[in-house]
């Protein structure tokens, strides 16, 4: 089993959101990943993969993790999000526009084997197997707020690693200014890509390099202690908690380093409504929604949306 690093002030208490059953599932998931990691260690070390200390450490327990897990930003008592909501109310346009049907339709997505192409302004383009990436990364748990542009929100415990680690592994050139992410394209399994044939598939998102290297930018491979569900972006997705949810692209299969801001899916579809940055700014109406308030999944009560979704202290410098 590996050690899980959770210590930052932005982290939200897992004890508030995790049932015993989920906790036990998490232990199993972590143990399995740990076993895989040990098996690949011999492979990964010589090839330049990052092997952070602590990933394969012994005697790490969930309780020791949670004891260090303090949320100094927001009191989340009675504001937890059940996985029943986050796994059954999904935006994943590749599979259609009916949020309630995505979890069923996305089961067709084959998440293994899965590779990620690294291309563009890099020293050496490559194609990486997702499991080899996961095994080489400093896995940790993070609990983030998610704010959808449609004004609903959730609090989700993710498993994964900092995006900055994947960028280091990708070894971009100094001329790279932006990172472009793409997801899969397969209209035969993704009915949204067939029925909405006129959309600019595949889904594309992007971050500036400073954003991508920020400590909060996260690559998730799991949630609630288990591997990601297909409807939540399996096998590997982006999580950028200070931006609207659509920036957190699901099921990534290509990472391209580029000089100019990539044109994103939503910018192409609706350029007057969407910009590249899409930071959560409650005083600025975005797309067709007033962004001052949000309704947490599972709740009927509106809450005030926070600047940068509550992560202003961490990310404000990026934009000043």
């Amino acid at each position, binding site marked *: 089993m590996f050690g899980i690093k959770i210590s930052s002030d932005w982290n939200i208490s897992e004890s508030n959101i995790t049932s015993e059953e989920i906790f036990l599932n998490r232990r199993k998931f972590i143990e399995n990943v740990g076993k895989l990691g040990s098996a690949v260690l011999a492979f990964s070390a010589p090839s330049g993969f990052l092997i952070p200390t602590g990933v394969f450490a012994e005697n790490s327990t969930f309780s020791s993790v949670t004891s260090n897990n303090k949320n100094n930003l927001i009191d989340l008592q009675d504001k937890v999000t059940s996985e029943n909501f986050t796994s059954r109310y999904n935006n994943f346009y590749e599979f259609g526009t009916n949020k309630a049907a995505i979890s069923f339709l996305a089961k067709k997505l084959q998440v293994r084997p899965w590779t990620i192409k690294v291309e563009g302004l890099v020293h050496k383009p490559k194609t990486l197997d997702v499991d080899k990436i996961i095994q080489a990364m400093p896995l940790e748990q993070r609990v983030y707020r998610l704010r959808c542009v449609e004004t609903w929100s959730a609090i989700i415990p993710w498993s994964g690693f900092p995006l900055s680690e994947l960028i280091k592994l990708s070894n971009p050139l100094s001329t790279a200014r932006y990172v472009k992410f793409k997801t899969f*394209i*397969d*209209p*035969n399994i993704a009915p949204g890509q*067939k*029925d909405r*044939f*006129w959309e*600019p*598939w*595949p889904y594309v998102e992007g971050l500036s390099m400073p954003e991508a290297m920020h400590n909060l930018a996260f690559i998730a491979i799991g949630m609630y202690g288990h591997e990601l569900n297909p409807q939540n972006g399996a096998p590997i997705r982006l999580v950028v908690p200070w931006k609207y949810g659509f920036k957190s692209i699901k099921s990534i299969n290509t990472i391209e380093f580029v000089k100019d801001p990539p*044109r994103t899916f939503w910018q*192409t579809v609706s350029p007057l409504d969407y910009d590249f940055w899409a930071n959560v700014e409650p005083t600025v109406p975005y797309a067709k929604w007033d962004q001052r308030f949000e309704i947490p999944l599972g709740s009927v009560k509106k809450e005030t949306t926070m600047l940068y979704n509550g992560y202003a202290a961490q990310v404000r410098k990026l934009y000043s």
Partner: protein
Amino acid sequence: MRKEKKNFVVCLIFFLIQGHLAHSMERHENTSLIPAGEFLMGTEEGTKIERPIHKVYLKAFRISLFEVSNREFEIFQPKHIRSVRSSCDKCPVTMINWYEAISYCKKKNARLPSEAEWEKAARGPAGHRYSFGEISDQSKSNFANNFELGAKTVKAFQPNGYGLYNMSGNVWEWVDDWFSFYAKTKTEKLRTMVFSEKMVRGGSWYNSAYYINVGMRFKLNPEIKLNSIGFRCAWDVQQ
């Protein structure tokens, strides 16, 4: 007097014949004659709406070599507003719905091609996957490009084996048919009856290779106008 009358009648007949021939030639100018015969319609590379591959017999027909251009369409409908993604005179007209497309073709004594006619013509005599051949090749057609690049002129790239341009890529093309399944089970037949979508074919400049496979089928409400959908006309051939 009698001789003058005779000359007048001869001249009249001459001009009528010439006019008919000219009209006929104009009709056939920039069209390709697709011979009568069977072809294999559908593809196993798609979903259940493209399956099964089946033989279809078609009578001979003519089809335009090119997508209808902005300039051609605006003679018929001067108030048409061009898409910025297909804005030149010789670029394919887009932002037109299915009803506007059939109206234009009717003015030309033509019609929209049926789905089967479109697919047979697009496959060419060799029955290819893409109008330009079997292998996806961006040098041979306008597809898989950035959305911002837009459509190219209707004469861009090389024609297929029937002489037709841009059947794969550039802009989608409306065809005449309502959606229905090829293979009709009882349930599908029932579902077919309530469908209210027309078919579009061929993909556009920003779609990937999947979409420009000429066997792939896509359906859309006929009232919708999109900046990537155009059309071309077809004509019956007198047997």
